[in-house]
């Protein structure tokens, strides 16, 4: 079965040189795709997670009684929202990366940076998407009536408890559609990590078609389909979550 499959693509490449699906019959190229896919998934999951955490914490800090805390959050949002994520990535890796300490690598004699290029990609993209998430959650929080929060404080809830148990669960429901959009964008933006040589799917694809120009169209098709698949899973998960959180008799 598998043999017939690889044989089909091998013959296809021989008969039509532009359609060289090399990764379907050459194990080394397939391994590259798998590795790239793994990195893309790791990047996506880590960035989605940390950007949501940044969004939740940032939105909480935005309602802080301290003027300075609010200003710092505002400054952070303005910086990361108004500059290109690509430039941010380069800045994190090439500028900040120079100042991070190094540790001895796994081979025992080379020095490697404490934060790897994958680490910098995760940090940079999480802060980028996190800035938008703060704004997304803030708009959700503003939709929670003041009177509901007042009821919580009349019951003795602290500010943090009110935020975690009352405001956030309600704000989340309002924010989900906008959050959905931002996370979809984030998953697609992980391809920028190619610029700092993170071996994710785009990096591996470009490597393949540099080595085998005849594989360019097939690899591009694979790239598109892979992201349609990945984003599809994310959207499906988000809409399931949205449905699970729907409250009878509340909202739309």
């Amino acid at each position, binding site marked *: 079965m598998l043999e017939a499959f690889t044989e089909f693509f091998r013959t296809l490449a021989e008969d039509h040189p532009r359609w060289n699906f090399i990764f379907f019959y050459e194990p080394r190229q397939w391994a590259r795709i798998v590795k790239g896919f793994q990195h893309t998934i790791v990047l996506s999951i880590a960035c989605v997670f940390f950007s949501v955490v940044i969004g939740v914490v940032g939105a909480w800090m935005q309602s802080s009684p301290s003027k300075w805390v609010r200003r710092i959050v505002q400054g952070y949002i303005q910086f990361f929202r108004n500059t290109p994520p690509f430039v941010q990535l380069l800045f994190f890796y090439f500028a900040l990366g120079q100042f991070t300490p190094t540790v001895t690598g796994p081979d025992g004699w080379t020095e490697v940076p404490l934060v790897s290029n994958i680490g910098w990609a995760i940090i940079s993209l999480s802060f980028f998407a996190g800035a938008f998430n703060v704004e997304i959650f803030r708009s959700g929080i503003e939709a929670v009536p003041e*009177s*509901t929060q007042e009821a919580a404080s009349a*019951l003795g809830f*602290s500010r943090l*408890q009110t935020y975690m148990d009352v405001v956030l669960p309600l704000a989340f*429901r309002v924010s989900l559609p906008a959050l959905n959009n931002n996370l979809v964008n984030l998953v697609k933006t992980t391809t920028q990590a190619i610029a700092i040589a993170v071996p994710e799917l785009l990096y591996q694809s470009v490597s393949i078609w540099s080595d085998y120009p005849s594989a360019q169209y097939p690899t591009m098709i694979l790239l598109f389909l892979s992201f349609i698949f990945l984003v599809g899973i994310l959207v499906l998960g988000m809409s399931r979550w949205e449905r699970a959180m729907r*409250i009878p*008799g509340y909202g739309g």
Partner: protein
Amino acid sequence: MSQPAWTEDQPIVSIKDVHKSFGDLEVLKGISMDVMKGEVICIIGPSGSGKSTLIRCVNALNDIQSGSIQVEGQEVNDKALDKLELRKKVGMVFQQYNLFPHKTALENIMMAPIKVLKQDKAEVEKRARSLIEKVRLQGKENAYPGELSGGQQQRVAIARSLAMNPDIMLFDEVTAALDPETVKEVLVTIKDLAEDGMTCMLVTHEMGFAKEIADHIYFTDRGVIVEHGPPATFFEQANDPRTQEFLSQIL
């Protein structure tokens, strides 16, 4: 600055010469009243007379500019006040119910005792179920606020407050948003409470109800208490022309 311990023969809520402004607007202009344990007092008066503001000051939802409010001998208008301690003693029910819409009726009641008082979940649930029964909402334990009528929501809100075992209950125009048929079911619930000996401070427009359950009625207008007394004398022999005018419009 330790105060002598509060004893039950002293007022449970003692309000003295309270002034409160929102910006330039002075809402309370020197209000004083004492409430004894187990007493039910009703505050009536035209809209904007400061009734709601006054009871919101009792559990520190609003702060005051001058004067003093003591609950069980503890000064409320004190920067160092532990608001949690105060709010354990003072329950509050709002005009718009303000239930947590993402929690069922039972969860609404259980949330504060578990999260704030850190009580045992099983024990809280038992108490919550008996409170549901007390406010006559058996069968609605798992309904969300959006699935309940206004009157039912308000009774859940009352049960939610009671779950904290407060010593005093504040009711801020709790029937004002309800349709006439459901007003009664909420009033019956409050009456049960009052009969059980709960100290209650109510802001209300339900004169018949005030007359029936109040031990003492206060009439406020433009930030001052114009007149007060037990219902029998208050309704029959109002002296002040403002009270007379108000009562003639309402009754």
